[in-house]
């Protein structure tokens, strides 16, 4: 890319450079649109949330009460719900997704691998409401009858695994999110594993490494950036997921320590309450929640970038 950009200008500057200029301007305009949409989004959210920002200030982020009748609003139960369901989902989906990707890219017979990949990509395209229905009819009863009671017996001494078992709640939402995000991790991780040059594998094998050692010490570290990318994409999807979560998270505005308890996410409460919200303050508080979701996404993306930068440096230092 950089090489083409700095290539010497064409010898005939006439019509061709004009065309270049037009192309430059057109693409610039397109790129600017993206930026403009983001800026307008924040501008709009900022403006429409003014009453709520004025009344609650920074306390909005730490407030745990959400009472549309008393017009007292706090975002903490929703921030917690959004972050905890997404993180728990990743805890489940990363080993599953990366493991499956390694198998499909490195070990599986090609025919089986491409069949699986096709199915995985199909899963990634399933609308989330379908996952929600699947969750209500299969995941929720499974969680209520088997998984949550088992977890309660095993880890009941931790506050996260105490309290009544309802089947819906933070943990069920996380499991559903994990199911929804695994296809992304598998699909993108597999691509980046396949892009690892043949030389790398051959070199490792030539040095006497076994197949496993080659995979884990050479191929996976080489594809690290792609795998991380797939994880961040899943995280972004998990943070913003709405329909499926609304159906299984329990939609309770109270903050609970237990992962079995019903909770709420920012996207879910926006979907549930915005249409019927009346009055300036109520609407403003919901808009401010949208702003908070935007912030949470930015913060998490920034952390992700930092992680990438840090690991890349470590990698290059190793190479020296």
């Amino acid at each position, binding site marked *: 890319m950089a090489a083409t950009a700095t290539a010497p200008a064409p010898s005939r500057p006439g019509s061709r450079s004009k065309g270049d200029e037009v192309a430059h301007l057109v693409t610039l305009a397109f790129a600017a649109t993206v930026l403009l949409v983001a800026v307008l989004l924040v501008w709009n959210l900022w403006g429409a949330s003014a009453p709520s920002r004025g009344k609650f200030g920074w306390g909005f982020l730490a407030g745990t009460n959400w009472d549309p*009748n008393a017009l007292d609003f706090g975002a903490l139960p929703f921030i917690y719900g959004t972050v905890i369901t997404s993180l728990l989902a990743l805890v489940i989906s990363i080993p599953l997704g990366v493991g499956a990707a390694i198998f499909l890219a490195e070990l599986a017979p090609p025919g089986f691998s491409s069949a699986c990949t096709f199915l995985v990509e199909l899963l990634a395209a399933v609308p989330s409401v379908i996952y929600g229905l699947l969750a209500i009819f299969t995941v929720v009863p499974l969680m209520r009858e088997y998984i949550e009671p088992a977890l309660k017996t095993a880890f009941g001494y931790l506050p996260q695994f105490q309290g009544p078992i*309802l089947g819906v709640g933070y943990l069920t939402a996380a499991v559903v999110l994990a199911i929804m995000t695994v296809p992304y991790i598998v699909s993108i991780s597999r691509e980046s594993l396949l892009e690892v040059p043949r030389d790398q594998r051959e070199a490792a094998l030539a040095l006497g490494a076994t197949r496993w050692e080659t995979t884990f010490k050479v191929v996976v570290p080489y594809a690290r950036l792609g795998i991380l990318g797939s994880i961040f994409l899943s995280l972004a999807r998990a943070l913003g997921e709405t329909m499926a979560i609304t159906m299984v998270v329990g939609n309770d505005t109270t903050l609970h320590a237990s992962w079995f308890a019903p909770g709420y996410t920012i996207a879910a409460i926006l979907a549930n309450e915005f249409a019927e919200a009346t009055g300036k303050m109520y609407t403003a508080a919901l808009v401010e929640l949208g702003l908070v979701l935007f912030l949470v996404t930015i913060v998490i993306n920034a952390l992700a970038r930092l992680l990438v930068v840090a690991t890349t440096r470590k990698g290059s230092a190793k190479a020296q």
Partner: protein
Amino acid sequence: MKTSIALAGILLAGSSLVSAQAINGAGATFPYPIYGKWFEEFRQKNPSIEINYQSKGSGAGIAQLTAGTVDFGASDMPMKDEQIAALKVKALHFPTVIGGVVPTFNVPGVTDLKFSQKALAGIYLGKITKWNDPLIAKANPGVKLPSTDVIVVHRADGSGTTFVFTDFLSKISPEWKAGPGSNTSIKWPVGVGQQGNEGVAGMVKQTPGAVGYVELIYALQNKMSYGAVENAAGSYVKADLDTVTAAAANAAKSMPADFRVSITNAPGKNAYPIASFTWLLIPTQIPDAQKRAALVNFLKWMLADGQKDCAALGYAPLPKQVVLQEQKQIAMIH
């Protein structure tokens, strides 16, 4: 180039062919099944008028009416004074049908339940946590109640159904009135939220020990069983079209001029206590003469022939006195 102009021409011609007088409305989802049927029937009788209705929720209906982006609104909850004050053009409330909200339950081994007012409020306040609680048992002699945990289910999405249900709880329980109160969304003391009637019904159906509330029409259409509720006269009444209509009978006698009235916990031995009107919100001034004529015609038709559609869809029709009073109010649109 030429083809695109020709295409545009065809499109324009096409749109002018179907350019019936379009009237746009938005609001409550609860009466949407019957509104949809009404608007379609009315269009068949008057092909030149097309009423588009977006069932986005009562709040959205009021907001859009206030912003002036729709010709009329619809709401399951009468407009509050401050909402009326925010309107640029005064709007009239027209009750259209009456609906009920029923408690549905999943108690192992129990097929029929009576809910006393104290028990229902206690359950939703989180004070009654077991099904064999004395307060529940007292109203259900002879029923073998298990010691299962009570799992409370409520609507998660803002809804007129929630307003009607919490309006009833506020009337029967001072503690509820002082605490959670009534609104389309409230701060629930306890329980799990689910989206829509189908979400609540589904959760109750598959969770042993669960109790929830759904619209009467939803329960009827899905042949769900539901409990009887103690009314203001102290008798246990099961919701059906007759008992819901009976709830409106008293309000019909002393209907306020602006139709903003709550009929939950209505007096009368046969009155079902969790019932409510739903309203169309029509501006008093409609500058466009064609639109005005169309809306007036629709209202007249809705109050006469339209009411005959109610029973088939599970809504209770308006009492006669209310219809007469509304017909007079139509004259205020100009």
